């Protein structure tokens, strides 16, 4: 694929240019920073994430930049290692829910009828629950663990993809080039893979980018409630949860909270930039289903 990445309308964009705005660069830099942290966490951390070698509840100092927590662990080290938990899991989660959701959505949209009804009713059902309440019930039922939290989030996070993909497929299916392709003898599978999916991939991927943030927030929210990461895993949400116990030791929650925010923010900005380069209409379809 060369420079051009055409979309449904006359617009075009070249990737380098779209990503050249200061905000986009900042976002990419933040993500790059955390990727480096993920790789180098053991090297960068002054202490092990589980080591309880220090005095408890020390405020930030030269020795412990972000202080120590309630059992005497170095918060900085835990935050750095926390990136290895939250970010990769969120990325995998999003990819998985994108795959599940868009396959279901594409099937529902393209083949319609009973499949469509069944898939979309189920999606409605999931939609009817506020995500975190459903995730909470699931996580509580299965017992808290990162794995179960991931399952819970997967269960609640595929419907937006299904909806968006379905509506994109529905409208793409009507477009003249898809019809023209059918007239030229494309079977349903060829039509879907050759004409429909390539043209809706961009918005779905943008949705996924925007969803990374949501996934991190959900995951950390569940961990915060004690329904996600299992201690002593250095998960950011769980660390904020630890911090709740000691208002006076504000630093326990400060760094992990900020970390969540920067990562989520970076992915959201990146998603925005990608979305803005798309046709505004497509962008609406994208955002319309994010929640």
């Amino acid at each position, binding site marked *: 694929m060369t420079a051009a990445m055409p979309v449904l309308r006359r617009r075009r964009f070249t990737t380098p240019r779209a990503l050249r705005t200061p905000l986009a660069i900042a976002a990419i830099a933040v993500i790059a920073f955390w990727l480096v942290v993920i790789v180098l966490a053991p090297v960068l951390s002054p202490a092990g994430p589980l080591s*309880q070698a220090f005095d408890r509840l020390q405020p930030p100092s030269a020795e412990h930049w972000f202080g120590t927590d*309630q*059992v005497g662990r170095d918060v900085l080290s835990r935050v750095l290692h926390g990136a290895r938990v939250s970010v990769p899991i969120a990325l995998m989660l999003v990819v998985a829910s994108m795959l599940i959701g868009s396959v279901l959505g594409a099937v529902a949209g393209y083949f319609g009828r009973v499949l469509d009804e069944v898939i979309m009713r189920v999606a409605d059902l999931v939609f009817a629950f506020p995500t975190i309440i459903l995730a909470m019930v699931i996580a509580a039922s299965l017992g808290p*663990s990162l794995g179960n939290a991931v399952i819970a989030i997967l269960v609640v996070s595929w419907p937006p993809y299904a909806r968006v993909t379905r509506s994109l497929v529905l409208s793409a299916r009507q477009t003249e080039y898809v019809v023209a392709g059918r007239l030229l003898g494309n079977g349903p599978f060829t039509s879907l893979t050759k004409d429909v999916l390539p043209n809706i991939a961009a918005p779905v991927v943008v949705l996924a980018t925007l969803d990374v943030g949501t996934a991190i927030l959900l995951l950390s929210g569940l961990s915060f409630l004690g329904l996600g990461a*299992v201690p002593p895993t250095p998960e950011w949400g769980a660390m904020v949860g630890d911090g*709740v116990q*000691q*208002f*006076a030791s504000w630093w326990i929650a400060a760094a992990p909270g900020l970390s969540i925010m920067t990562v989520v923010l970076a992915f959201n900005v990146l998603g925005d930039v990608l979305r803005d380069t798309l046709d505004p209409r497509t962008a609406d379809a994208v955002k319309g289903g994010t929640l």
Partner: protein
Amino acid sequence: MHTSISRVAAVAAMTAAGALVLAGCAATAPNTPNGAEQGGGGNGTLVVDASFDLATADPNREYETTGSIVAKALYETLLTFEGDDVTEPVAGLADFEMSEDDRVLTLTMESGHTFSDGSEVTVDDAVFSLQRVQGIAGNPSFLLEGVTVEKTSDTTLTLTSETPNPALPFILPNPALSVVNQEVVEENGGSADASDAAEDFLNGTSAGSGPYILDSYDANAEVVFTANPEYSGDAPAYERVVLRNVPGETQQLNVQAGESQIALDLNPDQAAGLDEDAVTLISGASRYVIFLFLNQSEGVSPVTSNPDFLRAVKLGIDYDSIVDLAGEGSVRPGGFIPSLFNGALTADQGNQQDVEAAKEALAASGYAGEEVQLNFPNDITVQGLSLQSVAESVQAQLAEIGVNVSLAPAPVATELDAYRNGTEQIGLWYWGPDFPDPSNYLAFTPGELVGLRAGWTADADPAVKSLADAARAATGDERAAAYEELQVAQNESGPFIPLLQPAQNVATAKSVTSVALNPVWTIDLGATK
């Protein structure tokens, strides 16, 4: 002055919260957070923050910490304790006399106690109430298991036990055994058998003779009490008490900010963070014992049931650092009986850390690094202390001697099942006494309630078993020694590893001059001044 600051703030808030709320903040400014300060003296309102585990306001059904506070405020019991001394029961609605063989307890009603509807508390009410506890088979009904309640005259009743029951006078002060107004309760569907349907009514209206009457009740949010004009004792210092459900960390802020006058569930770190100029802190060891157990059932875990492994764990734990973790006021018990009760061991009589010995024991056990699971409930705190910190410490300490522990927390509701069915490999739990008598801790012996949860069957440890039987049978002054001996033996070979008694930290506003704390009902709101 506060007014003007608040007005400025309101303007600032506008940027954060939007123009719409502006009107509200500005209007509220004069009576926001400081209003509560006036509640301190005289006939004002007392605001008490607690972490709720409230299930019901029906005294004969409640068996939770918060429920006891509520029942204690609304009702009276036949016997009671004086202040926080739980070593000696005293007369409440009745005076008592125990037969020589510890089997028949005779209670004589004291006159002059009246229910909130003005009627007198009679022996019939007392008999009805105790029979109701038994008949409705609620949480507390085991307290009177094997006990027959009979009215013997217009002023007396007897409680006859099948077996000698020296603990009975210590059981009777439990607020679950409160006396309710028979007439009122029966009018509202109440009875002393399973057909009882008065709970709904009692959740809305109290029918007792306690210092307060129930004003409103929301098991999830708050309970409001108002003074009972018919109360026969000293009138309570506060006309109105609001008992609110607030998490510990917020309690700390509230009591300092003057939003509440009493905070009941502060953990040591929160307590340490208090501004002593603004609040008074009362701390002491609580009645709870947090303990670890290793399952002795080979089916559950061949690792934890290995005696050498068990010994290694006992030797590997850094008991002092765990008590440090729990902060000021917490105590390290020598055995499973908490320091407040007869028969308790001191810390130096308990197990001690010895890393080298632990490693040897571990080597002897043939342990090869298998992962063992440590289960604990993660959504509850014991006196504000979360079990998670303790679990994390234990995990790290055992890692030092080479034991690979994985933590498996769960909400208490989920985890209880595994705990009570005895399927946990390593469990981290706590025990709150049902009544302040060491006999309550016989549950921790082979074949008994808690023992079985650790896979400690009746025939698993005959030595300890016989010591337990001896303790049960002991009377008078022999009892303490018998229980001490039992605990020493348990520490040696039993699956239970008592870790700590967390501190109970209660913070009060300076306006509160006296707080009536007690290990059985936590706080007597009626006697708080």
